[in-house]
């Protein structure tokens, strides 16, 4: 009976307010029964106009504005902004400041990855795992708080260096805190690596073939999970060049691979911080520069979610001519749309979360996918 084959689809909005998404992002799903046939993303709920505000502000105040592009990778945004300005003004960053920045950048990454692993667990419906990871994440937050007096925003980066120094006590606290964290991660890691039910949720889901990942321009753990060794830290900015860093990649191209990349990077970050603390030289932490930025610079660094790109044009005044920021979630959205097709509604949270969407980073444009729309 041909009549029996006439299909009707269910169409529903996923977001902007949705408990699985901590941030407003709308995905309009068309599903056949529970199988996804079409996804249309709808962004812009967080659009604030930060780039424009950056041009209005005193360029020194922008550090704090850029920091608040995203509360999760806040330090990296501030650092990237400072680095770009430093590139324009040819400011020399003291060695100790470079190491401190590296330490804090990796601390941010730790915080972000632990947060993500927790949210991912929550998205899978694994509440106890979520709670456990967020409990362990508090160690990192305590370190952040001890460093800068605040749990989230370090606000320690300044043009030409950093605002705060670390004393011996703090370094000791870092060392013991991180080794405690490593122990706690050892207890949780097998759940992500070997647990059969978690594997059932992640393995084979959200496949992003290597060629498509390159073609669509995925970044960060998303592309590293597809076996492409692309990591801005290999550029050796700040102290990374001296820390013997190699990117982590996995080849299975699915949600599982992306989870493993992030899990491994947690350990890697702990190692990097420890190594940076070992090698940290003494000396000043800030070099003052009085020159207003005049010129153009670009800067690429690796955020927890991938490559962030800063482009700043200064015109020799206190205001900047143009600030352009491309955050890692934006290039990861086209791959996300491809990953989702053909999977079930139940797979939406793990797959959507597997690119670690940071909408508040991405907010600057409304993105239209011509293929899907």
């Amino acid at each position: 009976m041909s009549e029996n084959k006439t299909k009707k689809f269910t169409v529903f909005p996923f977001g902007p307010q949705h408990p699985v998404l901590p941030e407003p992002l709308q995905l309009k799903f068309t599903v056949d029964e529970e199988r996804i046939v079409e996804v249309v993303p709808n962004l812009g709920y967080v659009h604030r106009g930060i780039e424009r505000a950056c041009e209005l502000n005193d360029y020194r105040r922008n550090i704090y504005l850029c920091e608040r592009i995203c509360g999760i990778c806040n330090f990296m945004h501030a650092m990237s902004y400072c680095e770009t300005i430093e590139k324009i003004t040819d400011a020399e960053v003291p060695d100790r400041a470079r190491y401190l920045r590296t330490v804090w950048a990796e601390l941010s990454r730790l915080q972000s990855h632990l947060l993500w692993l927790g949210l991912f667990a929550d998205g899978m419906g694994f509440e106890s795992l979520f709670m456990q990871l967020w409990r362990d994440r508090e160690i990192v937050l305590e370190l952040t708080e001890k460093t800068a007096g605040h749990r989230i925003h370090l606000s320690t980066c300044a043009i030409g260096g950093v605002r705060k120094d670390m004393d011996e006590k703090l370094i000791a606290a870092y060392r013991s805190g991180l080794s405690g964290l490593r122990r706690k991660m050892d207890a949780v890691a097998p759940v992500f690596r070997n647990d059969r039910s978690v594997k059932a949720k992640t393995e084979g889901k959200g496949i992003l073939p290597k060629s498509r990942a390159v073609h669509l321009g995925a970044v960060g753990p998303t592309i590293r999970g597809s076996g492409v060794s692309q990591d801005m830290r290999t550029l050796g900015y700040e102290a990374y060049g001296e820390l013997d860093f190699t990117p982590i990649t996995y080849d299975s191209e699915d949600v599982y691979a992306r989870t493993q990349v992030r899990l491994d990077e947690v350990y890697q970050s702990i190692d990097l911080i420890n190594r940076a603390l070992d090698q940290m030289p003494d000396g000043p932490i800030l070099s003052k520069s009085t020159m207003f930025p005049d010129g153009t610079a670009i800067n690429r660094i690796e955020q927890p979610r991938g490559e962030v790109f800063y482009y700043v044009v200064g015109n020799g005044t206190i205001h900047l001519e143009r600030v352009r920021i491309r955050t890692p979630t934006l290039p990861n959205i086209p791959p996300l749309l491809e990953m989702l097709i053909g999977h079930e509604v139940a797979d939406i949270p793990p797959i959507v979360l597997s690119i670690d969407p940071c909408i508040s980073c991405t907010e600057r444009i409304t993105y239209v996918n011509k293929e899907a729309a």
Partner: protein
Amino acid sequence: MTAIVLGASSLGLLYGERFIMTPPPLCQTAVLLMDFLLLGYFLYVGIKKRNPLVMGLTVLQALPMAYFELMGWGHHTEPVIVVDRLSVLLGIIINIVGPLVCIYAISYMGEHEDHLGLSKSRQGRFFLFMLLLLGAMNGLVVSNSVYWLYFFWEVTTLCCYELIRHDATEQAEGNAQKALWMSLVGGVAFVAAMYVGHYAADSIAMDRLLVAQPTSLLLIGFGLMALAAFTKSAQFPFHSWLLGAMVAPTPVSALLHSSTMVNAGVYLILRIAPAIRGTSLSWAIALIGAFTFMLTALLAISQRVSKGILAYSTIGNLGLMILCAGINTPLSYAAALTLLLFHSLSKGILFMGAGIVENRLNSRLIDDWEGLLGKLPFTTMTMLVGMVGMFLPPFGMLLGKWVAMDAVASSPTLEGVPLILLMVIGSAATTLFWAKWLGHLTILPIRERHSDPEVLLAPYKLSLMTLLGINVLMSVGVAFAINNLVVPILVGSYGAALTTPGLGVNTGVGTFLVIPLWAAFIIVPLIGIYLARWKGGSIETPYLAGENIGEDGLSFRTIADSESEFKVAGMFLDDVIVEDKVARFGVAVGALLVLLMFVLAVI
């Protein structure tokens, strides 16, 4: 008019004990003559439509019949007509539901022909076959002579064929021929059974065959009859004709599914069941029934067409009855009878309701029936009650299913286990497809729009309400129904299995508290209505992740601030249950099981 007379007379028969009659030989000759006429017509159809299957099967029964007749074996058939309590139960079903469907058809065919834009009404022909079918069914359930039984059997085949092809479309023609050849397979089996009866018991009178010493040969005869029954009751592997029958106008389906045709098969199995108690044949019959029940319940989930669901549900319930008949204990026999009675009553309502909706909405897809409760409140309410009546307590159908479960559970463990497994899965799947349909029909619009009030023709209302009334009354007074309709049948061959003490029905292993359940069934929603009145509440827009638009809240804002309406579609799981594949599997397993049945009969 005929309807009322028929109904009344069958009720009258209820209080007679056993009615035996042998018509004069002239009648028998007439039957013989008509039989060959019928076969001649089938042959003509086969030749005209160039359908070798029909031709072959017709010849395959005409020639043996002629030989049988020439040898004069068909005359030890006294008494020709025996009316016992089983016949009476069937008679009641046929003569209550059947005429109601005919009354319904008066309105329906009018609308239907308006719809098709026919210049010349073909209703005369239609009602001729409808009534002929009812008559044949009546004849079928009272015939004692296998010969007469066979004749009426073929008459129902004829009526069925003619009714299915009534609309004269290509599809109708094809499906009618499919129905024809499958029924003819049953005819062939019947003729073979006659030979077997003759050789094994030297008689083709049912009552003698049933009490004869059961030899292997006789069991094969019963197996052949069961095979004939499977074709009529559309069990696997012969399920497809009943699905094809949906192309006919709805009253045909209503009649075929509820009171006639398909019941013929169940009737035949119920008839032979006492004779095959405790044999492996009986178990094999039960297995086929159980298998059909399970598989059709799953297949019904995958159906988008309303009549398709109903058709699979019919096949499944017939399977359940055959399962019960096959288990062949007093309890299971009672279950089969209860199911038979209530299935007819409920299915009639559903088909009639579905027909009305189809005429109004111009669609048979249940996805299009979304929110019907707001559009056609009367018909939908009736259908909802009919649906609830199919699978939920405290209605009679569920009572029957419950007795069936008790019965299956009481069968010997190792034989019972596969049956139980098939049955519980089928039963859960039944809940699934009914409940999802039920829910889909009740989707209410956010704002109550004042649409035109539903206008229903009087015959529609009359037939729907009467049938619904009878269904509910019977379900409430199920104790009465069981005591008067079911238990007397049991007393004859099995001994009573069901007792109806006080408030409920007792099977000896469990109690179904009919009256308290009914009381709760009525009181709980009433309290609910009262509570809803008291608490009230404003109707609000649905949750759409905060992006609703407008008062209706039926669309949401999406990319580039465009509007998009959200949609919900039914659940069919047809990526899991691929109809063609599952049906093919069913036919294959069904065929194997039929083979197994004969093997077991021989052993």
